[in-house]
């Protein structure tokens, strides 16, 4: 499902942050007792995140090679692998082409209405992928296969590439391009040879995120009958609960995720494209599109009609088709708000020590803690849920089918969203203020409450907001782990659209979008701030 993420937008300002860290020599000084407390929270949180991988390894050892071989080495698995990989590749390519092209049009050309288009291009993030799929499948007959799956996922995920690339374009120093032009290179040659390489990090980061979302996507693909590892794991779950076939497919899925993570690391390389030195980067000269503006406008408009217009039309049409609302919507909304709030609070609280240590006590260990958290969250929700449900049944029965367990799964899945926001928030506060308070004799407690927390409050708020948003459209983990009798907007929407009751599903889709819309706006504001830092 489309999960809003703060990562693309916040990745861009990182260089500014790290400059500051490097300039402050006193960062690594620690004060014993409070650090021990921070580690005492951070380490268990990170260890918790290792449960899913530990579970799969444990199950594999029990099954043994003789048990694993017949499950994994057969035509069916090869078909699924090919389905999953081809969709991931097509979707990533599609998102990169659309994202980079759109970002260039918005940031570097004289396209009319650029600012409005720029805002609208972020808006698809408010439409969960399974809602998009529902819209298309309910309006277009025979909407199926790789083409349909690619269309829906590209429309849902291209902002993951657009956002960071647009931010990177704004941050680029244009003098390199001007030098190239002065050397008589054509405009296209300059773009390919000079600009594109500088966008590599942003593009790869966005593409990786798209890839991971494809691996985890369930609702959008199941709705149009496109089988991937994730959809088949869910079908196996429905046929066997946590049978060996489901677990082993989950293991393969984890390997795919790891492959993506490593590929991105390797492809990113060590090259550095940041400007060094003082002075102001020159405002880029905008390319004159001339008559080219018409096809460009047409392309962008089509993209937006497909990504926003179609879902809006479908939801409106089905809603008018006469759904009688009943109390279901209100009940689902309240449990979504409740789970979202609990999850956001828990995740932000758990992320705070990790982010603090990563920024203020930079060292190998704190970096390792932070990275491990990213690893867990790259796992699909279905893998995390499958592990938690089994572990809870066998070894942690008191939390089985409780709100606590769902919240733990959210924490594992969405910790990085909180980390990224908190990290930026903490890095922007001067450690000197803390020191000043200490020098003035404030007690530790007082320092935390009166100085530190107010300073990082904006970071805390945006961290909580982004986690909340991700939870409000989460489907698979909620389906598997929710306490008896609990239904959320996402699970109710799924239930109705799964039984083709499009009319009954529409209000739930609309409510999810309404919840997400304000946060998408915040995301847009955040990304616009990244201008010549």
């Amino acid at each position, binding site marked *: 499902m489309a999960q809003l993420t703060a990562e693309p937008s916040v990745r861009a300002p990182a260089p500014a942050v790290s400059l500051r860290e490097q300039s402050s020599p006193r960062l690594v000084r620690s004060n014993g007792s409070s650090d021990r407390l921070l580690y005492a929270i951070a380490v268990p949180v990170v260890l918790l995140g290792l449960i899913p991988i530990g579970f799969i390894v444990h199950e594999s050892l029990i099954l043994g090679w003789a048990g694993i071989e017949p499950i994994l080495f*057969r*035509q*069916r698995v090869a*078909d699924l692998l090919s389905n999953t990989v081809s969709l991931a590749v097509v979707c990533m390519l599609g998102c990169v082409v659309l994202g980079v092209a759109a970002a260039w049009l918005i940031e570097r050309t004289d396209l009319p209405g650029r600012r409005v288009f720029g805002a609208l291009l972020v808006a698809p993030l408010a439409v969960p992928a399974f809602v998009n799929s529902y819209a298309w499948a309910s309006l277009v*007959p*025979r909407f199926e296969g790789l083409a349909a799956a690619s269309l829906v996922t590209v429309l849902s995920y291209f902002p993951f590439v657009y956002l960071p690339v647009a931010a990177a374009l704004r941050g680029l120093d244009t003098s390199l391009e001007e030098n190239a032009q002065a050397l008589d290179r054509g405009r296209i040659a300059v773009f390919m040879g000079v600009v594109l390489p500088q966008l590599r990090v942003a593009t790869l980061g966005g593409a990786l995120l798209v890839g991971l979302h494809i691996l985890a996507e369930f609702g959008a693909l*199941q*709705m149009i*009958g496109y*089988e991937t590892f994730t959809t*088949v794991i869910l*079908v*196996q*779950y*429905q*046929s*066997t*609960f*946590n*049978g060996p*076939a489901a677990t082993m497919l989950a293991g393969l899925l984890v390997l795919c995720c790891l492959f993506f993570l490593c590929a991105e690391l390797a492809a990113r390389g060590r090259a550095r494209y940041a400007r060094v030195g003082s002075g102001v980067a020159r405002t880029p000269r905008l390319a004159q599109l001339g008559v080219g503006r018409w096809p460009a406008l047409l392309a962008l408009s089509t993209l937006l009609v497909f990504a926003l217009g179609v879902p809006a039309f479908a939801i409106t049409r089905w809603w008018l088709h006469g759904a009688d609302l009943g109390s279901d919507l209100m*009940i689902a909304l*309240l*449990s979504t*708000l*409740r789970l*979202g*709030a*609990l999850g*956001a*609070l828990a995740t932000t609280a758990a992320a705070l020590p990790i982010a603090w240590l990563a920024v203020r006590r930079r060292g190998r260990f704190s970096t390792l803690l932070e990275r491990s958290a990213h690893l867990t969250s790259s796992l699909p929700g279905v893998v995390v849920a499958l592990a938690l449900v*089994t572990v809870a*049944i*066998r070894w942690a*029965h008191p939390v*089985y*089918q409780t709100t606590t367990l769902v919240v733990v799964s959210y924490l594992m899945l969405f910790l990085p969203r909180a980390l990224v926001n908190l990290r930026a928030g903490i890095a922007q506060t001067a450690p000197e203020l803390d020191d000043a308070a200490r020098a003035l004799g404030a007690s530790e407690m007082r320092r935390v409450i009166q100085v530190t927390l*107010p300073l990082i*409050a*904006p970071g*805390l*708020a945006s961290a*909580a*907001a982004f986690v*909340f948003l991700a939870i409000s459209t989460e489907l698979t983990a909620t389906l598997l782990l929710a*306490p*008896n*009798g*609990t239904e959320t907007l996402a699970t109710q929407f799924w*239930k109705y659209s*799964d*039984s*083709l009751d499009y009319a009954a599903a529409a209000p739930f889709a609309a409510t999810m979008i309404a919840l997400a819309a304000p946060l998408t706006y915040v995301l847009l504001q955040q990304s616009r701030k990244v201008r010549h830092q």
Partner: protein
Amino acid sequence: LQRIRLLAVAGSVLTLMIVTACGGGGGNAPAADDPNALVVYNAQHEAVTKTWADMFAKQTGINVVIRNGKDFELANQIKQEGDKSPAEVFLTENSPAMAVVEDAGMFADVDPATLDQVPRDYSTSSGKWVGIAARATVFVYNTSKVSEADLPKSLLDLADPEWHGRWGAAPGGADFQAIVSALLQLEGEQVTGEWLEDMKAGYKNYSGNNTVLQGVNAGEVDGGIIYHYYWYRDQANTKENSANTKLHYFRGEDPGAFISVSGGGVLRTAKHHDQAQEFLKFITSKAGQESLADSTDLEYPVGSGVAAAPALEPLKDLDAPSVNPSELNGPQVVELMTQAGLI
């Protein structure tokens, strides 16, 4: 100034969250917070069970909390939960999942009075669970693509080259898996395994019976295997997914004429044993079965002599094969279907 604004925003976001987190306890259905509520694991249609639960609560004052899932998911979940299972009553769409829990020895005996409400044809000889509804296997076909003369005579005919690439099904669902379990009981492992292999080569995969019906109606495939009520439900409604289709009943005791019995049972470990028995008794009573017959879900009632909706083909005219629902082997079906690459 900006800092103050940010602080205000942060403060209000956090307050809002704390308020919803603490005060939202009543956000679920009220029954979820009642420690004395009866816990029902439900794989039967949600609307049907919800109606039963509401009627039962009104009549007895006993609240019912429902966990929804699929047949085998919930059956295997109950098995894994073992003695600690919170489930007290288990309701399914098909018999094989009931057999899984019965084989694990986890059902208590159903009250004799409840068993007496349901004829033996739609119940078990073991008395460990009772039929609560029934559904008939049908072949739905697109009338512009298949003439009546060319209809398959048996479910097994769909494996023939003649039908290659022309039919659809939803093998990931418990409904189709139940039909295969009947095939397995009637024709044995060899025939079933081969039929599934042929199916894999020549069928079109759909995510559910609804989408099979939609696909047949749109002419994506000529026909498909589903249960009767998907078609009747759409006919009673807008007909947008069934206007171009008709139903074909295999009859003649063919595996394809299988009538699947939905089951209900009380868990041995139920904390509220008497209330659980009472709920099952209510479901199979005249009032419970009438609510099923009157519902828009159009399943067949099986208990207390309640007649099915008049639109439906009478159950006794369907000439169904005789199967023992307690011995339908779901796990073996799932294994055979996994082997054939269908799920």
